[in-house]
């Protein structure tokens, strides 16, 4: 039996002026999968998840979530339907406490739930600190914790490990593994170690277009992908 499809895009296209940031991208994401989206800088990865989440309106094409056409559903409703999104450029409430940040993500001010959510990224003892005073890495972790706290069905992470220390990346991998199975994860990632460690399948975008899809081994051995992205390693 084929796994249920949680997310699907059909011919998704984004044109900026004359430039196609995404061109005719068809994509299917089975529920429960950890899927990595990779590709060179400017390949259109952020644009793609932007259209999936509703941040960026699509020029053409369709987005389906959980069997519903959500192409014209505004972003906040998509989040309510069970998506969560973390930004490539950290977007937290810098002037509010970690507790406030998490409470807004949880939609509740329950102290224990907030502590538990912060604990998942090891920040529970900093709940009363102002988020903007955290180190860059910790701010990224906070944003990831906010995404996880929303208990989404689809968690979209745009380069979450950028700026994290080696030890923090270990913790991140553990966190994602703990979610695997229940939460479907769409992960944009440049760190190939992270991709290889976490992803069940990988999709490669290049120049706004679909280039390849497969298991980590398939992708590693794909000639086209090596030329476009991985280099001849």
């Amino acid at each position, binding site marked *: 039996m084929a796994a249920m499809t949680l997310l699907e895009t059909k011919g998704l296209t984004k044109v900026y002026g004359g430039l196609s940031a995404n061109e005719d991208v068809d994509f299917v994401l089975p529920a429960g999968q950890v899927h990595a989206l990779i590709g060179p800088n400017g390949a259109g990865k952020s644009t793609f998840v932007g259209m999936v989440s509703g941040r960026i309106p699509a020029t053409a094409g369709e987005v389906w979530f959980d069997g519903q056409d959500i192409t014209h559903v505004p972003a906040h409703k998509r989040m309510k339907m069970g998506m969560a999104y973390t930004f490539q450029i950290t*977007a937290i409430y810098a002037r509010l406490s970690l507790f406030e940040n998490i409470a807004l993500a949880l939609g509740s001010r329950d102290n224990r739930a907030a502590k538990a959510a912060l604990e998942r990224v090891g920040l529970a003892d900093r709940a009363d600190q102002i988020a903007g005073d955290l180190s860059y890495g910790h701010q990224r972790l906070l944003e990831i914790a906010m995404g996880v706290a929303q208990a989404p069905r689809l968690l979209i992470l745009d380069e979450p490990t950028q700026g994290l220390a080696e030890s923090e990346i270990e913790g991140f991998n553990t966190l994602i593994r703990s979610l695997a199975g229940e939460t479907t994860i769409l992960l944009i990632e440049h760190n190939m170690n992270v991709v290889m460690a976490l992803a069940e399948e990988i999709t490669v975008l290049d120049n706004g277009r679909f280039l390849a899809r497969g298991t980590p081994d398939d992708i590693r051995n794909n000639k086209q992908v090596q030329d476009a992205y991985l280099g001849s390693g």
Partner: protein
Amino acid sequence: MSIDRRSIALHVGLITVLFVGCFALNDYHQGNVARILVLATYAIGYNVMFGYTGLLSLGHAMFFAAGLYGLGMAMHYGGLPAIPAFVVGLICAAVLSALVAVLALRTIGVAFMIVTLMFAQSVFLAILYFGDWTRGDEGFVIAQSTRQVLGLDLTDPVTRYLAALALFSAALLITARMMHVRFGRVLIAVRENEERTRMLGYDVFRHKFLAVVISGTISGAAGAGYGLLFGYVGATFASVQYSIFPLLWVLLGGAGTTIGPLVGTIFMFYLIDYSSALTNAYMLIAGVVLVLLTLFARAGIMGEIRKRWAPWLP
């Protein structure tokens, strides 16, 4: 004490002090504080939008005026008793703010400021244009005999003070409660990071819209209260000056604090009062103090207190 208990103690304590003030103050200050309480209600309304939601309006006088004229016209021409006329004032302000919200919220930042300024200017000019009814700049007086509520004479200084305190307390407690529950937290979230808030699943437009309507309606309640308690309705209250005042009061007292609006209004009122007793150039003194405050107490009086000593301040 938990934060909630401290916050309740603060607000109830403040209202108690003001209540005692009614009997402890001499006639001069009693009259001043009654006026300050109504103006501080206006500032509380302004603070909902500016302090908590981060929407800078330069046209709030239109909401104050909507309440003022709504009540004034209903009493003066409609012959309505005070309470129904007050409700008319509230409805006028609520409808106007909903209209302004729908149109102005299509813009952000400086454009938003200018759109609110333009709307307020249109309201001001409309009041002058319909001078036959509104009596324009000159204004009109609401007959003393009609300014009664439940057998209480609102022109009596003590009754007036207590009525002003009731109005102020209602606005204070409503906003304090609002900022305590999720709705208010989301307003702060919108102020701090709109995009993040949207991507957490909150309807940003809906929250901004309600913030404008609540802000405009509280400001309108202040306007209606002003007309009822002081018996005068005039176009000055719709002028740019009256749009700038609440901004100054809130900035001085501390934007985004519940009691900052009152603190700022008292501060500015007495600053002008005392400096005008000293010199004709009282606006100069007021200006210098304002400059000093913005240099050394950026967050306003209550904002600085919160920063330095009392991070729990709501």
